[in-house]
C-alpha cells in the first residue's frame, strides 16, 4: 500500500500471554475435532443432514466469516475510490483482519467439502462449470486471497529488508488495489446469489433477485462495523489511543450506506409483496426482525453527528450491525430454508468448537502479526499510555 501514510511499526511486546495461550488451546481443540472429521466423515462431528446439508461450517465460517473479513475491502473502497487518503492509518490493520478472515474462511471450506481432494477441479476445464454460482464464488474468493497477500506483502518485504522488491511491486500496486475492490464486490454479492437456485424453498423474506445487492451492501457496512470494533478492541487491548477522528468520519460513510441499504430492502419487500411474512407469528418472522433491528439500530444511534463521536454509541452500533449481518446469512441459508417436513438442524458441540477454534486462530494470528510486523501506525510517545 502506499501514499499519505503515517509510519507503521511493529508493536513488539510479549507473544505468550494468558490470552494467546487460551486462543492457542481453542485452536488446538478444533484441530483435534477436525482430525476426527477427516478420519470418520463429516457426520461424526456435525449435525448436518440431507435436509440441512449446509451447517454453520458453511453459513458461519464462510458466509458470515468472509463478510466480517470485509474491513479491508470496505476501507479500500473508501481510501482509493472516494479518494479519502486520510483513512490510511486504518488500511493495514483492516487489511490484516481481512487477510486472516478470508484465508481462514477459504481454508475452512476444505473441512466441509466431502471430496476435498477434488477441490482443484473448480478451477480447471473440463470440470469448471461457469453457470454455477458456486464456481464464481470459489474463483473470486481464491483470487482475492491471493491479491490480499500481494497487497499486504510490503509489510513482509519491509520486515525482511527487501526494499528493491517492494519498490518494483509498488509500481503495479494500483492494479491489485483495483482487483482488491472488484473481487470482493463480485463474490460477496454472489454469496447472496447462491440462494436463487433454491427457489421456493427459501421464505420470500429472503428469496429475491436483489439478493446480490443485499449481500454486497451488508458486507460493506459490516466491513466498516468490524473496523470500528477492531479499533475499539485494539485501543483497549494494546493500550493504543483510539483513532476517534477517523472512526467518526468512517461511521458517517457507514451510516450513508446503511440508509441506502434499508431503503433498498424495504422497497424490494414491498415490491414483491413479501411483508406479510414478516408479521406472522413464527420463528422466521422473529428472526427477520432481529436481523432488521441490527441494521435499523445503528441508523438511529448514529443519526446525530454528535453521537458519532461517542465511543459507546459507535461500539454498540458496530456490534448491532455484526449481529444483523450474521442473522441475514443465518436466515437466508438456514432459518428461512424449508426443505420439507421432518428435518431439523442445530449445530453439535464439536461443530461449534471448530467454528470457535477458527475464530480463535484468526485473533491469535492478528495479535502475533501486529506485534511482529509494521502494521499499526506509530504512536508518538507523548500520546501513548504505554
Amino acid at each position, binding site marked *: 500500500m502506499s501514499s499519505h501514510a503515517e509510519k507503521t511499526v511493529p508493536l513488539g511486546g510479549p507473544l505468550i500471554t494468558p490470552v494467546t495461550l487460551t486462543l492457542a488451546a481453542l485452536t488446538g481443540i478444533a484441530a483435534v475435532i477436525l482430525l476426527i472429521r477427516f478420519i470418520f*466423515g463429516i457426520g461424526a462431528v456435525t449435525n448436518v443432514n440431507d*435436509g440441512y446439508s449446509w451447517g454453520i461450517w458453511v453459513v458461519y465460517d464462510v458466509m458470515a466469516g468472509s463478510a466480517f473479513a470485509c474491513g479491508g475491502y470496505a476501507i479500500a473502497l473508501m481510501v482509493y475510490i472516494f479518494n479519502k487518503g486520510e483513512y490510511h492509518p486504518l488500511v493495514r490493520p483492516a487489511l490484516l483482519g481481512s487477510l486472516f478472515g478470508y484465508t481462514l474462511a477459504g481454508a475452512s471450506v476444505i473441512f466441509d467439502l466431502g471430496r476435498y481432494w477434488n477441490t482443484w477441479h*473448480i478451477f480447471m476445464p473440463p470440470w469448471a462449470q461457469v453457470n454455477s454460482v458456486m464456481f464464481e464464488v470459489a474463483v473470486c474468493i481464491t483470487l482475492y486471497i491471493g491479491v490480499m497477500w500481494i497487497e499486504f506483502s510490503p509489510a513482509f518485504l519491509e520486515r525482511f529488508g527487501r526494499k528493491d522488491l517492494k519498490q518494483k511491486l509498488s509500481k503495479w500496486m494500483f492494479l491489485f*488495489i483495483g482487483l482488491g475492490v472488484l473481487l470482493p464486490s463480485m463474490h460477496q454479492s454472489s454469496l447472496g446469489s447462491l440462494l*436463487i437456485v433454491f427457489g421456493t424453498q427459501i421464505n420470500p423474506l429472503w428469496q429475491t433477485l436483489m439478493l446480490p445487492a443485499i449481500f454486497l451492501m451488508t458486507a460493506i457496512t459490516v466491513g466498516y462495523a468490524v473496523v470500528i470494533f477492531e479499533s475499539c478492541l485494539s485501543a483497549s487491548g494494546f493500550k493504543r489511543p483510539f483513532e476517534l477522528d477517523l472512526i467518526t468520519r468512517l461511521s458517517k*460513510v457507514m451510516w450513508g450506506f446503511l440508509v441506502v441499504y434499508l431503503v433498498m430492502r424495504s422497497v424490494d419487500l414491498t415490491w414483491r409483496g413479501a411483508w406479510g411474512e414478516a408479521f406472522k407469528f413464527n420463528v422466521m418472522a422473529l428472526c427477520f426482525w432481529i436481523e432488521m433491528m441490527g441494521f435499523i439500530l445503528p441508523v438511529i444511534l448514529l443519526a446525530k453527528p454528535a453521537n458519532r463521536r461517542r465511543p459507546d454509541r459507535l461500539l454498540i452500533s458496530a456490534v448491532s450491525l455484526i449481529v444483523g449481518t450474521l442473522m441475514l446469512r443465518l436466515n437466508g441459508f438456514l432459518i428461512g430454508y424449508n426443505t420439507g417436513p421432518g428435518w431439523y438442524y442445530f449445530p453439535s458441540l464439536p461443530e461449534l468448537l471448530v467454528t470457535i477454534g477458527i475464530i480463535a486462530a484468526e485473533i491469535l494470528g492478528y495479535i502475533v502479526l501486529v506485534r511482529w510486523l509494521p502494521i499499526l501506525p506509530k504512536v508518538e510517545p507523548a500520546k501513548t499510555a504505554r
Partner: protein
Amino acid sequence: MKTTRRQFLQGAMAGGAALTLGATPPEAQARPNLTMPPKALGLLYDSTLCIGCKACVAACKESNGLPPEFSTEDHLWDTAKDLSGKTKNVIKMYKDGNGTQKDRETDGYAFIKHSCLHCVDPSCVSACPVSAMQKDPVTGIVSYDEKSCIGCRYCVVACPFGVPRFQYDTPFPKIVKCELCNHLKTGDKYQYSACAQVCPTGATLYGPTDLLMQEAKRRVALKPGAISKFERGQIGSGNTHETVVKAQYLPRIYGDHELGGTQVLKISAVPMEKLGMPELPERSFASISETLQHSLYGWLAFPAVVLGGLVIAAKRTSRPDDEDKV
C-alpha cells in the same frame, strides 16, 4: 482533498446506490427454461396401481449395488424410511384418519414413489460447480460422476425435491441419486430401470417421456369401474394385464410443467401435495439463477468495466513516487 460532511455523505450514498445498481441484474439476456431433450427417457409412476410391495426398492438396491438400511430393532430387513446415502428409491405412504380405503384422501391411504425426477432444467446441474451433475443432451438422464465431485452438497440443498443425498458416515463420501439405471449393460440382470422392470402392476413404467405422457393422459381419463389394459415394465413391452379401474384419477399429471417439466411423471387419486410432492412454478429456478449470473458476469464485460474504473481511481490516489511513505 478537503471534503465537507455533506459532500461526504453524498459520496457514501451515491456509492451505495451505485453498488446497489451494479449488483442488480438488467433483465436483458434472459436464459429461458431448457426444453425436453429429443429422446428423453423417464418413468411413469401411477399411485393408484402401486400396491406398496416395494419390489422396486429392493431391485433398485440390487441394480445399484447399494447396502440395506435398517430401521427396525432386529436389523433383518432393508427398511429404508427415506432416500439416503444408501437408498436411491423409496415408496412412502400417505395415511389419513382410519386409513381404510386405498386412494382416498380422507380416511384413506395411498403410495408415492420418491426418486430423481430427471428435471428438464435441473437445479442440481446448474448448481454443481464442477460438472459432476450432468444432463445427457439426448436422453436427458441426469447423471452423477463421483470422480469429478468435490462434495460441496450444493446439489443436495438446491434440489427442490430433496433427491440427491450425501454420505455423512464415511471419510470418502459421494452423492447418491437415481441415474435412471444408465449404468446397465447387455447381459446384466436388469436391462432398463430396475424399479420398472420388477413392478408387478405397471405402477412404475419405463420409456420415452413423450409416450409416457400419452399413457398418463390415457390413464387419468379412465373412469372408475372401467376395464382397461395396463402395460408393465417398459412402454411397448406388450406385457399387459387387464383390470378394473378402482380409483378416480385426478386430472393432474405431476411433472408436466413443474420447473419446466420433468422426465419422470406421476399420477394419483390423492392430491400430489398430500403425497409430499411440492408445488412449483413453471419457470425453472436454474434459469432464474443463470439469467442473473449471465447478466452480471456474461463475458466478464461488466466486471471488466468496473475494474477499469477502479484501477484508474486507485492509480489516481496511490502514486508510485511516494511509495517510501508506505
